[in-house]
């Protein structure tokens, strides 16, 4: 039986074969078992003859199949043919219809025209600037995520007395007033396995004063009062699906809010190139871009997992970032950039480092783990998903109407 290998790019062997004008056809086995393939196979045989005659230029990708959709379309120079990737382990050639050919050519022309216009505009602006010299209008600012963002009225103004008082009297006030020492309980599903165990190990090592306990299916609602009794301040429950961690429920105790996150992109320190060794120093926590009121609440929740006073000599830093920052002197700005799609996500990173090289530059060494979290809901009170009151629930159809609107 053939190995189900998902194909988005043709493999190097296949690429070379195609470049030489060859066509890869499915094996006989596949052709007989999948009727659709059989039909395409027949089509491929016909085009193979055409291909064999016409010289093939270099392959150029026009559209890429999305994960789950097994079709990729490559355009060959001349736009006469498209290479269509279907089922794994073979690539087939199919003849493009006239309309498709025309569309591809038109698209390419349009793109060329746009680039030309852009170049001309840029040159025009440069000429004007040179002519006017000092009186020239200021340079156009590049559009960034921050300056194209939809204005959010809940962005916290620094001296807003209501918000200040609200935060002084909220559930995290005890932590920020240094009355409470954080103590984190790590829990997970009944039988954790695979990457979940690795993640829990990492979290246990990273978060000072954390304990991992096996839950064996105990109900969270029953665990919570017991944890409160034992002076825990937070419970982190890592959810697992198919041996991979996929969710995180952060419950602040004794009566604090419960945040439910979707967890993706876990990479442990060991798997990060050039990672450093985790020390036992109390880390510093950096929260980037948690500007809205909701962002503030979530940011405070993250901060409350770590000891209040960091040991700067240890140079250990945790960063929670919601968006790419535009300033270059910021620590995370020099590390990773995220595209707009990820801007609703929170990246969690653990660094050792900041060896200051001069005034502006910072050297970083990642310690791991690396996580990406997306807030699903923030519920008031301790875990009660059915009857609890929600402060914020992510409603995709209502809230995700604009790519430039960020809730955190």
């Amino acid at each position, binding site marked *: 039986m053939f190995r189900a290998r998902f194909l988005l790019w043709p493999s190097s062997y296949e690429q070379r074969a195609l470049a030489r004008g060859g066509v890869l056809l499915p094996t006989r086995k596949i052709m007989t078992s999948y009727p659709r393939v059989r039909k395409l196979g027949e089509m491929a045989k016909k085009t193979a003859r055409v291909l064999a005659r016409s010289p093939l230029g270099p392959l150029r990708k026009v559209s890429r199949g999305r994960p789950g959709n097994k079709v990729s379309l490559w355009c060959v120079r001349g736009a006469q043919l498209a290479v269509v990737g279907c089922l794994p382990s073979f690539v087939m050639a199919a003849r493009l219809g006239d309309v498709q050919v025309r569309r591809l050519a038109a698209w390419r022309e349009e793109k060329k025209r746009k680039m030309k216009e852009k170049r001309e505009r840029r040159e025009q602006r440069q000429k004007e600037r040179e002519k006017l010299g000092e009186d020239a209008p200021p340079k156009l600012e590049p559009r960034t995520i921050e300056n194209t963002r939809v204005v959010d009225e809940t962005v916290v103004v620094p001296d807003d007395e209501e918000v200040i008082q609200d935060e002084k009297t909220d559930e995290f006030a005890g932590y920020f007033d240094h009355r409470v020492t954080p103590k984190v309980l790590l829990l997970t599903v009944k039988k954790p396995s695979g990457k979940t165990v690795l993640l829990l190990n990492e979290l246990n090592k990273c978060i000072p004063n954390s304990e991992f306990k096996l839950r064996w299916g105990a109900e969270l609602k029953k665990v919570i009062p017991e944890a409160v009794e034992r002076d825990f301040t937070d419970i982190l429950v890592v959810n697992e699906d198919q041996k991979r961690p996929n969710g995180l429920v952060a419950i602040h105790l004794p009566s604090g809010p419960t945040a439910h996150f979707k967890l993706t992109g876990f990479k442990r320190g060991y798997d990060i190139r050039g990672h450093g060794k985790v020390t036992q120093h109390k880390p510093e926590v950096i929260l980037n871009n948690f500007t809205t009121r*909701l962002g503030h609440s979530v940011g405070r929740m993250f901060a409350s997992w770590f000891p209040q006073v960091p040991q700067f000599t240890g140079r250990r830093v945790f960063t929670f970032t919601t968006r790419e920052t535009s300033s270059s002197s910021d620590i995370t700005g020099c590390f990773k950039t995220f595209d707009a799609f990820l801007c609703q996500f929170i990246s969690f990173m653990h660094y050792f480092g900041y060896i200051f090289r001069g005034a502006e530059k910072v050297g970083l060494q990642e310690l791991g783990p690396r996580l990406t979290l997306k807030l699903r809901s*923030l519920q008031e009170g301790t875990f009660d998903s059915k*009857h609890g*009151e929600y402060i914020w*629930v992510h409603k995709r159809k209502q809230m995700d109407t604009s790519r430039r609107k960020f809730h955190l």
Partner: protein
Amino acid sequence: MAEAPSHVDVWLGSSLGLMKGVTLDPLRCTNYLPGGLSVSQTDKNHEMLCMCRQRETLYVGLRRGVVQAFDSQLKRFTLECDVTSGVGTLVGVARHDQILITCTDRGSLSFWPPEEKKWEREVGKETCCMAVTDSPDSRVATGGRENPLKLWDTSQLSHTPIFTAKNVRPDRLGLRVPVWVNRVVFSPDHSGPQSILVTGTGYGEVRMYDTRAQKRPLLRTEYGGEPITALTMSPDGRYCVAGNSVGELVRFDLRAGGGVAGRYKGFGGGVTAVDVSGDGSILAACGLDRYLRTYSLDRPKLLHQVYVKLQCRCLTIGENYPRANDGGEVQSEGEKEGDDSDEEDVWASMATVGETTRTGNLRNERTNILNPLSFPLHVHES
């Protein structure tokens, strides 16, 4: 906020004890605090949990067990009185004639007549809600967790409820349906003694009861499974609007079998309070996402969305909202009030036939301007 507006459309009771007066056109939010208290001195003990309005006075119940009276014309707090003595938290406050009615979550329903001794009723161990009718023969409805809906008379003589609801039949699996009355509201039925009530359960069900007809609900509709945390009726008694803990705000048509007649979108968090204006055209709701939203009741269209910075658990639409002329003219306000009082005198002198008055809102009682309550405690000076 340089100049306080002359009219306020919606009053909100916030989590830090600030009374927020929101004007919708132009959009403005003003905070009012009891005299001598500043924002930095408040805390969660000052959280306003319940509110009721009697003409231009708002009565708010605070978490620390105190009821404050706020004059919406003068825009300041006038009175305060301790009603729980530290036992339990307030779940409902209401005013009927001169009597102040409060209910705590421990089940202590107290009646505070002016210049007389209070009397109490035990309404159940865990009480979640209380509602009071507006009509002269007033009734109080209470309910809670494993505490069925009960109707109480406001006279001192009756010690037992006049009506206790019966639990619904067991569900399809033959299991007993747990009782959790989370919100209760009387249907503004003008024609007779108030007997129609609507309750919202903690399991997402809205039930309509007619206490004259039967002990079980006449109508049951379910929406989601999340607790109903806000409930109100339209003035004609036809629609009931319910909000739940995940921010779904839905209108049910009670005369058409309880079907959903509109969903009001926009809430990101649980809805804590909802109110319909006197003429039944505007719906205002506030929630845990710190926003006040107003919708037109008939077509679920969002009219205004105001960020109010604090979570609010109670709200009331102001007396004169929506105004006929939306130009926001300050002078016409005074004239309008004058008109109202003249009209009221005319109506008051006529024999009542049981029809609705011009103002149409049963919350405006045909009594004289209130005498201040003579509770022997703290009077605010501001």
